[in-house]
């Protein structure tokens, strides 16, 4: 009989619930130490792929996943980064170090010329709902109990990684033509 780590149940419940496990959580080390096992376990049990990123976060993915939240979050991030950049901020630095005020973010997005893409988010409490969803997934973290300010966790790097890949796909053909 295989000796499961005592945290096994928590790990499986968190990951299968669409959560990220961050390196700041004790369970991260458990998965890291048993990576081959968990890799096989999730594949064999659920057909999910386990990803352990060196930036310090773990998540599951599925070929058959149909969730729509990440698309909304990507658009939100894209517009937010754009606005921060236009205002002369180093958004990567901000994401790593800064705490954001929910109200400020809302104002920033309201002024954006890409506002129309965020209509579904800029509704009453829309941003808070979005942030809430992603705080449950451990991609953002509220830093006060009133949920007025938050910061991004390392897991947000997955979205940047995606943007880099997207850029490569789009820029590469242009370079090839040159």
């Amino acid at each position: 009989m295989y000796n499961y780590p005592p945290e096994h149940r928590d790990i499986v419940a968190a990951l299968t619930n669409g959560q990220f496990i961050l390196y700041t959580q004790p369970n991260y080390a458990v998965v890291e130490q048993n990576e081959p096992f968990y890799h096989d376990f999730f594949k064999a049990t659920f057909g999910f792929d386990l990803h352990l990123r060196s930036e310090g976060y773990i998540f599951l993915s599925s070929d058959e996943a149909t969730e729509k939240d990440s698309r909304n979050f990507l658009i939100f991030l894209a517009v937010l980064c754009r606005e921060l950049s236009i205002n002369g901020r180093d958004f990567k630095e901000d994401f790593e170090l800064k705490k954001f005020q929910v109200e400020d973010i809302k104002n920033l997005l309201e002024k954006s010329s890409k506002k129309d893409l965020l209509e579904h988010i800029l509704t009453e409490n829309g941003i808070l709902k979005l942030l809430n969803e992603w705080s449950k997934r451990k991609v953002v973290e509220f830093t006060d109990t009133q949920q007025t300010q938050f910061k991004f966790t390392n897991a947000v790097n997955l979205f940047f990684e995606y943007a880099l890949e997207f850029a490569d796909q789009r820029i590469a053909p242009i370079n090839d033509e040159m």
Partner: protein
Amino acid sequence: MYRPVTPEDILRFMSKNLQGLRLLFEAGRRQGYVLEQAVFEKICSENVLDLGELLRFRFVKQQPTQDYKLRKEYTDFLAFIFESAALNLPDRFKFHAEAIRGQFNDLQQEIDAAKLHDHITSLQNQLDDFLTEIDIQTRQLLRDTEALKASGEHEASLPARIATATRWLDSFIHPLTQVLQANSPDAIVAQLHRINVYSHQKSLFETDPELARLFRHLYGEALRVSEELTRLSNQIVRELMPMLERIRTSSKIMAGFYHLLEAVRQNPVPNIPFYGLLSRRNRRVYSTDWKARADMLLDNFIIEPERFVEEAVEATDDWLPDTNHFKNCLNADLPVDDFYAWCYDFLKSETPVVTLHKFFSVSKLLLDTDFEADFLENSYRFDLELKDATLSLPKIKLYRHVQLPT
């Protein structure tokens, strides 16, 4: 009238026209210090720069193509005082490193003591040139990188930013760090170390005091250059490289986001193949009671059409013989032509199932003294089907017993 040019004249001219010279310098900086005639004349006229003076001080010379070229001696000086330089190709550094190695070899192999002096000075100059160039380039790169970082990342500038950061990294920084790498025996640092050891020994054991002094100077120079190189190399690796990498990455992320937003704009439901994250819902690990729990949950969602089920009531036979009741009924029907048939019909109306027992409990009225039976001889018999028996019965007439008056 020919007036000789004195150093004071040149410095005075430069200090008076510094702004105009700076513009010429900046305009030419990225183009090998060659300015097109039109650009050159425009800057001169706007800044009251006298072409005659410029030519007299040999600040510029006109090319056969009519363009103007700024002289290297001046541009080097201006680059130094403005702390602004054009980036050199990394081959320049390799060239410097090669030159240092060659001159050091020459110095070591020289047997003519009279020529040693020249070799030492030349090597010293070479070292200084090398250091100055790297120093200027690093400062320039740092400044340019800061400027690049500060320039807002607007969509239009993104490809240019990515290209610039990539070009600087690939064409300057990486080759520069290769030149400065300490772990290769050919590296400049190793070369400097050899010069150090050599000149130190020579300065101690050289009998000619003049040569000993020169070797000491060379030793000092080599020491300074290696210390400075270490500092610059640190600056490049710790500051410049991460900063450029960061600019390149952020710009690329921004470009990715830009294309993403464009994709969304063109098609509100674009096919964005994100990593296939799982949606947030409770998935339970399979366990023995999982199916039972799932079934219970699902049952709540199944709305079946209303179905009326008739209660299956067990037919209980609560029929009890009641002779008085039978008698009353029989009395009411008298006279009957066929008593047994009457019994049967009567029971049928009273109870659904006619059994032998019930039949007899009614037919025993035949023996009651209140009735008179008329047994017809030769009458036919008929069969009566009961639940549990078939009876063959004769036809009997029944009358009321009439009591004769006594």
